């Protein structure tokens, strides 16, 4: 079990993370959600021992993780946001190095390497230089490197950035298998659909603060009545042209994402005519209209007034 208690980190005047706390039990997947710069990576870095928190502590199975060489760090595996691989070395040599960092060697290391290569779907490319791999292959190897020493807790920092759908699904399959084996996953992302698929528990972070921390259903219930009207506008319009919509009754939030206008409303029946009338009166035309139930994107939009991608 992983516990983060009151983690706090400041850089000069900037508070990067403020009192972040959560518990992740065996077999649980925790999603840390938030836009870029929200404090997700800083939180994971403090848990992994990359950063010393100004305040707060990290415990594994009740024991405090402390110091560079604490053996408890071996219970965690980190998948950094970057492709933390040596391009000039083969996949096998990369894995051999990363295994050795955890004291692995000999036959045990060789077995673990074969397992990681198999998991990453790279057994047939084991001796090829990583520089020759696609982005998706590197991502899979990045994940395999963190699983090599069979950690109890896996920390993943935006592990699917720039990944093709096939590799993304492969990564998800691996993570679901990892969870089925009773392991703990802490997963940071700003892709809400990923969190909805993978996570049992959601922690939404914005400006370094936790603004929601609950199971997926519980977070959804934070905005129980919210629905979203989504309109594909014919023109983007000038910045902020849609601000007036926010003043209408039952409208919770309004956001433009690309050329799509997203209006979060409490009561779809009463609010949608008002929204459409407001647009018609001002001559704003749209080509397509759809409605959807509250998802995590909506929750974030409602809680912060911004979409994750625009935050």
């Amino acid at each position, binding site marked *: 079990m992983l516990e983060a208690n009151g983690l706090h980190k400041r850089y000069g005047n900037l508070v990067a993370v403020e009192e972040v706390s959560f518990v992740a039990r065996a077999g649980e997947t925790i999603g840390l959600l938030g836009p870029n710069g929200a404090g997700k990576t800083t939180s994971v870095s403090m848990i992994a021992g990359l950063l010393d928190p100004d305040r707060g502590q990290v415990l594994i199975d009740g024991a405090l993780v402390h110091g560079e*060489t604490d053996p408890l760090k*071996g219970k965690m595996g980190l998948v950094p946001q970057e492709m*933390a691989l040596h391009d000039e070395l083969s996949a096998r040599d990369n894995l051999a190095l990363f295994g050795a960092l955890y004291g692995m060697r000999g036959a045990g290391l060789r077995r673990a390497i074969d397992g990681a290569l198999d998991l990453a779907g790279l057994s047939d490319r084991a001796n090829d230089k990583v520089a020759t791999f696609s982005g998706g292959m590197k991502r899979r190897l990045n994940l395999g490197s963190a699983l090599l020493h069979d950690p109890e807790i896996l920390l993943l920092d935006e592990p699917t950035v720039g990944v093709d759908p096939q590799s993304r699904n492969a990564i998800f399959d691996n993570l679901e298998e990892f969870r089925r084996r009773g392991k703990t996953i802490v997963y940071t992302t700003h892709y809400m659909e990923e969190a909805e698929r993978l996570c049992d528990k959601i922690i939404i972070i914005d400006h370094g603060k936790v603004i929601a921390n609950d199971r997926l259903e519980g977070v959804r219930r934070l905005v129980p009545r919210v629905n979203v009207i989504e309109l594909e506008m014919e023109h983007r319009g000038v910045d902020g042209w849609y601000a007036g919509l926010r003043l209408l009754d039952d409208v919770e939030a309004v956001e433009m994402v690309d050329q799509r206008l997203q209006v979060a409303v409490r009561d779809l029946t009463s609010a949608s005519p008002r929204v459409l009338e407001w647009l018609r009166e001002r001559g704003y035309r749209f080509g397509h209209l759809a409605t959807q139930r509250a998802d995590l994107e909506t929750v974030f939009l409602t809680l912060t007034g911004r979409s994750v991608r625009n935050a």
Partner: protein
Amino acid sequence: MNYTAFLALVRRDLRLFFTDRRAMIMSFVAPILIASFFGYIFGGASSQAAPSKIRVAAVDLDGSEMSRKLVAALAADQALALTAEPLEQVRSEVQAGHMVVAAVIPKGFEDQAARAFVRNVDKPEIQLLYDPSHGPELAMVRGLLTQHVMEVVSSEVFTGQNSGKYLEAGRRELEQAQGLDAPSKRALQQLLGAVAQLNGRARINPQGAAAAGGFSLPYTVKPEGVTARRGQAYNGMAHSFAGMSVQFILFMGIDAGMMMLYQRRNGLWKRMQAAPISRFVMIGSRAASSALIAMVILTVVFGFARAVFHVRIEGSMPGFVLVCAAFSIMTATFGLLVSVLGKTPEATRGLAILVTLILVMLGGSWVPAFLFPQWLQSASFAVPTRWAVDGLDGMVWRGLDWTAALAPGAAMLGFAVLFGGVAVWRFRWETAA
């Protein structure tokens, strides 16, 4: 300490280095090529090679017997490559850099020089037009010119065809000379008279008289370069290979530091930090691999110098190993220092190379430190490269024993302690998220 991780990281660094074509070229090919070039310029593998001649032009405006002999004497000098040029051309030749010095012998040179030789008056003026970028050669040409003028003029005055005329003119001038007391005048006139008598006998009986000729240098020299052994010629390659090894190994040290900065940037550092290993394993393994690579470079470069240019370790082999090891360790800590003090690879590389070039220059890698001004020779002991070059020179071609390696070894290890200490002190565990 996690030795498995330590050794794996060292192996990783070695493999990355030896599979990097650019690193191989910079660390092995470049020092060998440049050292060979500098070694050739500074005397090559054997001191027996003939030195370059100085290009000198002579303009004879006098056209006398004496001036012709002077030009012939200069032309026969082994140190000079003399050509006769017309006056209107020499200035542009020197300006264009085609000639180092042009000596213009003025009209009336013979008469004036002969009179001035006896009476120290009305000296003729030989104009020397020289290329200002060749100051040392000018000094050498002046010295040679002095020698040949003295030999030719004294020969002509004492034993030449016109000797009688010059001696008689000299005696007459002595009679009229002001400022000389009577005994001095008499003594000088007797001297000139005796020379005239000697010349007269030489003409009647050339075999029996004293050898004809004027003044000549009253000594000869036997130069001997003091190297490891008597009779052992100085091998100019030895110093240049030492200097270039030092330079390019320091560049390798910078690259090692750069690699740590790149690893911070691309996430590899995070993966290492997340593992239960200490900072000493992380930076110590880097230092160990750098030191090993430096030793390999030294071995290969000096191996090449031995095989091709016959550069041998004339001094103590253990002393040579000590100097190499101390320099390698110093280089490794220098790389750590670069990585610790640098913020980004881009911002750090240029500054680190500049600092290295200054260290190398002050260390005497490019030109031997004895060419420096005295104060700089003393000051340059404040940089580790000076100790490295001196230590290698001492063990390689000076042929010194192992005790001479102790001071350079201790100095470089002292620098290593300093650099390593600062690196550990300033080491940033954290990389801003």
